[in-house]
């Protein structure tokens, strides 16, 4: 359970980091990269650790991780280039 508690604290810290970036008035590409990376890392913790998909056989983990990567990648593209 120490691992779950550690993951929970990481999730809280990354949320605070993203919130802090926005509160500091950082915008555009300077905010996009850290906030999206923090979101990607948070999503991976939820998928692999909380949903416990890491190590599960079959394609379930890669489908959910793929969803996260695709959505965040396209959001990044839309905010930066589109």
């Amino acid at each position, binding site marked *: 359970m120490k691992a779950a508690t550690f993951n*929970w604290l990481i999730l809280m810290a990354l949320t605070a980091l993203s*919130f802090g*970036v*926005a509160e500091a008035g950082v915008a555009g590409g300077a905010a996009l990269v850290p906030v*999206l990376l923090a979101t990607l890392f948070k*999503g991976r913790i939820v998928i692999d*650790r909380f*949903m416990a998909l890491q190590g599960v056989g079959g394609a379930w983990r890669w489908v959910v991780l793929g969803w996260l990567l695709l*959505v965040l990648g396209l959001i990044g593209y839309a905010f930066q280039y*589109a």
Partner: protein
Amino acid sequence: MWCFILAELLVFGVFFLAYAFARTHDVELFNASQLELDRTSGFINTMLLISGSYFVVLAVHRIRHGHSRACTRWLIAAMACGAAFLVLKLVEFSGKIEAGISMSTNTFYMFYLGLGFFHFMHVVLGMVILGAVTLKAWRGGYHATDYAGVETGAAYWHMIDLVWIVLFPLIYLLN
């Protein structure tokens, strides 16, 4: 349940991308409207859902070891987080409605209210599922060798958390 979860993720994904690409047509409007949101409320709500997910993980861990009562307590803690989330969202929504804002105010608010309410309803459904699981756990219906129901409820709750983890920066933070 996993097919249902994937279908839900697909629907939310389409909405997220619709927001991101609709924003490109009027960036100034989206940025200006976003500044009217209560970012702190979104931040607290994120902490609540993350904590709720953590409590659900603890509940699954306890039932794996056959501790039905402890499992029940952690599930109740998770539902308390969900309830607090719903109260904060209702306060947020009512503030907007009192200010005369609706889905027809502009494109940003159409997405903000639409996506927010869609996710809100999923939290309500998640609480109903967790409530049913909690009741069964409280009655001793799960054991160390039979706890698939707890895991199923947990997977749905984590999906709600995962979706909010993307929704929060998209609607409240990025501009």
